[in-house]
């Protein structure tokens, strides 16, 4: 599908630009460089307006992400249950800093601010899998499971 054909159905919809960007990202895993120009054209906006929207929201990625994205909650309830130590342990385990993608593009490690699992913290999300009462081993096992499923 071309970028234009992904974006066009959202014209005229409430909040259409944001939904269109979600759709592009779902298809490509990130927003390819042309997204800005194509979306501006389709929505009859300036490129600056579109860029402004893309850069405002944490969800929109302008570079390819790792095949598996590990999002670790960095907010208070998780801090109260060892969240800071969990982040440090994961950075060590995957040899990555928060916000970085591995050179082989197989893994991205990034913070998320609250998954609403605050009563069973700390929590994380591996791909679309939620993990509560998380620790580095538990997250590592889910990463392995996710990789294996993708391979098969």
């Amino acid at each position, binding site marked *: 599908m071309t970028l234009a054909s992904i974006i066009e159905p959202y014209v005229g919809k*409430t909040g259409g630009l944001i939904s269109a960007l979600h759709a592009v990202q779902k298809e490509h895993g990130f927003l390819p460089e042309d997204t800005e120009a194509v979306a501006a054209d389709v929505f009859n906006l300036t490129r600056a307006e579109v860029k402004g929207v893309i850069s405002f929201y*944490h969800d929109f990625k302008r570079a390819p992400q790792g095949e598996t994205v590990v999002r670790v909650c960095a907010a208070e309830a998780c801090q*109260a*249950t060892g969240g800071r130590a969990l982040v440090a342990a994961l950075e060590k385990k995957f040899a990555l800093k928060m916000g970085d993608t591995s050179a082989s593009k197989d893994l991205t490690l990034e913070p998320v601010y609250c998954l609403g699992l605050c009563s069973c913290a700390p929590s994380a999300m591996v791909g679309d899998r939620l993990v509560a009462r998380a620790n580095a081993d538990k997250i590592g096992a889910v990463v392995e499971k996710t990789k294996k499923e993708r391979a098969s």
Partner: protein
Amino acid sequence: MTALTLYLPLDSAAVALGADELADALVREADKRKLDLKIVRTGSRGMHWLEPLVEVEKDGKRIGYGPVDEGDTASLLDAVMGDGKHEKSVGAVEEIPFFKNQTRLIFGRCGVIDPLSVEDYEKHGGNAGLDKALKMDSAAICEEVFESGLRGRGGAGFPAGIKWRTVAGAEADQKYIVVNADEGDSGTFADRMIMEGDPFILIEGMTIAGVAVGATEGYIYLRSEYPVAARVLNDAIADARKAGLLGENVRGSGKAFDIEVFIGAGAYICGEETSLLNSLEGKRGEVRSKPPLPALEGLFGKPTLVHNVISLCSVPAILEKGAKFYRDYGMGKSTGTMPFQIAGNVKHGGLYETAFGLKLRELVEDIGGGTLNGRPVRAVQIGGPLGAYLSPRLFDLEMDYETMAANGAGVGHGGIVIYDDSVNLLEQARYAFEFCVEESCGKCTPCRVGSVRGVEIMDRIKEGVEHGKNVDVLEDLCELMVDGSLCAMGGMTPIPVQSAVKHFPEDFGIKPAKQAAE
């Protein structure tokens, strides 16, 4: 073939603790035994330390087992098909004190029914409020809400009835109902739980609001971090249309109302109502100056009733049972019930719906059971990242809007995060600024720049660089952010910071003596 029905939550917390894998394992085990197993995926009861909690009905009571993991499947099926005895049995779920002592006006069905069955919903009292509202005129519905004393549950606590009257009284060709389901405060998950566990109550509350203020379109602005809620809501809305609960002719009343779910894109600030409206219009989520109030010029400049999820979910009971019934719960100007969310380092974490007015100590110690690791509680933060840090010296405060406000704190969205004695409040205060740096929309300077300066000041205080001067500068900065910020993001970031300094001066290298002199 023998038949068996089990109840197991689809709630994100249960899923994050293995409920989906457990469901698969139970099905495999049942197949092996040629057992006709039906698993009803419900919402969560809110006792998250027991999740995944499996329930089975016996003699009219739901008996629970939890937390159950995949390894328990064979013994669990033996138990429920036999004498019921199992090491993970918790007995009758509704007899567990944590559950039994609650007043569930909102969450009554959550964890009990199939969230996607209109029939179940109505069998358990659903739509009774809507049916009453459809027979009333607009002004009468608004009066009922006003008389109930309901206040917005998102954090600000503004009287709902006043908002309803304002939107109802505004002249326009189009009005909107917008639900703020951008529940970004750490320590809160009530919105998520009700949307996943009983979505029709939100649909009912929104429809009543639509009928009352004359709006025909409703939007649920849902954060992207809640994929389970998105799926349940979209399915529920489709079912509601089929059942005639939404559409051109709501329940044969001749009135139109419909709902759409809009998924946000990861921005804490979009929980602020004007930022949310900009985002819903497809723009950057920058806050707008008020006035104009969204009630008069909201989405696309039209009169808009913006409410938090829980505010609207409180409405069906008010309409069904009357304003007086609702007002009789709570204390003073804090009427009705609040789903408190007990989170962080806590033994019995979860959701506890009760009337306003119980003491903080009851929530933290009696209901929550203290910390998970058994260490002493040193601090709690109430009401999310912009809420105050309180020390156990203040645990006898009552949980209601006025008492909290009088003590420099707020109920917020009802989230309580518990910390043990290893917490360093300087780190937490620094984080409050750091979070504001990350999430400020950038429109006003006190918030955008003030937060960056705040992080720097915290680092200097930590390192002891011109300590006294920096403590003074911190106070100045906080005052400026409170007075000069456009919205609560910059305006309330000083609350966690200043409460931490006030109640835990030793963490900032400040002698408590100086504190007493202030």
